[in-house]
């Protein structure tokens, strides 16, 4: 099954019954599959007039009680940014898939890139935290799309599936488990009658307010303005801003342990670590094998969750190895996070690539050799 198609199938399995999108290479196949599948499961597919509209329709559908998704690539992701922010501010569960291609601008529509990783973290204005996942295979694109829906429902936040043109257009075996084996989460719901319900009041000891939806009699008000517990605008000073923005950040950052998924391989004896995500983690497989044959003890920490960032795990890793290598299909984005977390304990080697192709494995091998203190021909 193709990666994009696996993504659509994952969404259907997750209970997604609303898709709004706009055609864009290399994400179009997600929309195509959804347009075919959703009518068969009583769902709604709509092709909107642009990605701004798509993102808003997804938010609207979520407030009508649907699990909703859109899929796009770089230029469309840029257009969605303002309203991803609306989703963050209003705590609207939804999933946004970005099948990354080479940029900036129109860039390389049909070819791979991983240049939107920082945009995923910081792209919408203002300050907030967000969840972003990076699958490395069609199977994982299927699995993580389901996981993305679960996280979005639990934390009431747009969850970004940051895949790329290689994984999206790759065809591999995908196992779809029977429905009873798929765990699904649903958003917290109000337990009090409408008169007592405050739309953004958080129960003690929790981070996420229960969510009433339109048409249930709760007469909710939702706004992108800074709001108080009732959801009413409170924009004359910072009294509501503090607790609101703090909580939007905390509900992700304080739950990092529950959210973050990493894959560690061959790290037990490692002197060099490769930190990678998405297709770049797979590109590193051959160079790692070669390096092991050369006697370099190399292992990998693969980021399945990229945001929130696994600060502690990278910090620990940096204390145990003599070098960290970070191959990514951008000019060095996540490597900065790795450097920050390594905090000078060990050198961090960036292996950049502007996009258009995956890395030449030789470049990654050379970086591993360099990190191990071996001489490398220039």
């Amino acid at each position, binding site marked *: 099954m193709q990666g994009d198609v696996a993504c659509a199938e994952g969404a259907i399995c997750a209970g997604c019954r*609303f898709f*709004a999108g706009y055609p864009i290479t290399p994400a179009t196949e997600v929309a195509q599959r959804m347009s075919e599948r959703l*009518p068969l499961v009583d769902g*709604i597919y*709509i092709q*909107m*007039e*642009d990605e*701004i*509209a*798509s993102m*808003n*329709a*997804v*938010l*609207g*559908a*979520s*407030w*009508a*009680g*649907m699990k*909703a998704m859109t899929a796009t690539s770089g230029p469309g992701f840029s257009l969605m940014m*303002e*309203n991803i922010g*609306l989703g963050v501010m209003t705590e609207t569960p939804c999933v946004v898939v970005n099948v990354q291609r080479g940029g900036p601008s129109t860039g390389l529509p049909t070819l791979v890139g991983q240049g939107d990783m920082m945009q995923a973290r910081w792209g919408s204005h203002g300050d907030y935290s967000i969840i972003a996942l990076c699958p490395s295979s069609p199977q994982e694109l299927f699995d993580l799309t389901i996981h993305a829906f679960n996280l979005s429902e639990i934390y009431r936040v747009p969850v970004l599936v940051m895949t790329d043109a290689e994984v999206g257009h790759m065809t591999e075996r995908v196992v779809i488990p029977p429905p009873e084996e798929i765990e699904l989460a649903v958003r917290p719901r109000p337990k009090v*009658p*409408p*008169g007592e319900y*405050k739309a953004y009041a958080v129960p003690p000891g929790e981070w996420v307010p229960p969510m009433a*939806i*339109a*048409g*249930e*009699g*709760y*007469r*909710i*008000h*939702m*706004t*992108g*303005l800074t709001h*108080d*517990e*009732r959801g*009413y*605008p*409170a924009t*004359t000073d910072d*009294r*509501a801003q503090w607790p609101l923005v703090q909580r939007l950040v905390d509900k992700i950052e304080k739950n990092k342990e529950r959210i973050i998924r990493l894959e560690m391989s061959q790290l037990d004896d490692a002197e060099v670590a490769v930190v990678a995500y998405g297709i770049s983690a797979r590109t590193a497989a051959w160079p790692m094998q070669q390096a092991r044959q050369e006697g370099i003890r190399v292992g990998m920490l693969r980021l399945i969750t990229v945001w929130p960032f696994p600060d502690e795990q990278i910090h620990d890793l940096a204390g145990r190895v003599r070098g960290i290598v970070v191959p990514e299909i951008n000019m060095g984005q996540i490597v900065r996070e790795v450097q920050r977390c390594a905090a000078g304990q060990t050198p961090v080697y960036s292996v950049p690539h502007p996009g258009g192709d995956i890395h030449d494995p030789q470049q990654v091998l050379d970086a591993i050799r360099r990190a191990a203190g071996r001489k490398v021909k220039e």
Partner: protein
Amino acid sequence: MAITMRDSYRLDKSLEIHHEAEGLKEDVHGRHPMDDMLRTERLPHIWCPGCGLGTALTCFLSALCRAELDLDKVVVVSGIGCTGRVAGYVRLDSFHTTHGRAIPFATGLKLGNPELKVVVFSGDGDLVTIGGNHFIHAARRNMDMTVICVNNFNYGMTGGQAGATTPIGGITSTSPYGNYEYPFNVSALAAASGAVYVARWTVLHARRLERSITEALLKPGFTLVEIISPCPTGWGRQHKQREGLDTLRYYHEHGVIRHGADPRETDIGLGGVIVEGKFVDIEKPTFLEQRERRLEQIRSGGKA
């Protein structure tokens, strides 16, 4: 379960923030017949003296009563701007979205739950300038929603700038020498894009306006009511209408009721007539009906 006035005050008192908004109490301003439909705890509103939005909102609420809709199923979606604040004052499920994006958000709500009666209540700058693309596409699809567009020919909230509805010659804070861009005619734009119901009234014609909103609410498909409304702060004072009342007088002198007028002949020029009335009222299957028909054909073995 409805929240009573007293309960809602008590609710507010439990909150530390926003207590200043509670200054105005029932015993001070008395009870208004529309109070049950308003989030009175949010009053006073932000609108300037002489603004037409109070009348527009009252007409809308009266129309809601008259249409006898289940208010738990009525949803109001607004964008950004003075009119955009309507969503924050109605005691209904209400959504204050981003600038220009009320219509696509409303599209998601309607398709997510077709039982909802979705109303988009926003301004001309929001709906046909920054949000113009969504406006024409929702009309094209005949998406089931009522759009109430309050047109005051300028961007009020940000201080009276020119927009896509500003007539040629209009003086605004960004057209100090007079606007020289051709404006959109909101009603004609909706009609040309496929709206099944189009009416225009000034806020002076409140009873007729209320009737049109009622008709629009009860009609399936994309329905538009354009409300011409005074903005003494951003527009009026530059056009010899110092107060809202001067603008209403202007409407009285320049308003011409012409039901069934060709929307293309209803452009609004500076100092010219304002053609009002019901311009379009046609029958056409909605987006969801179209979808259902098509899928039904497929289910019964027909060809795509």
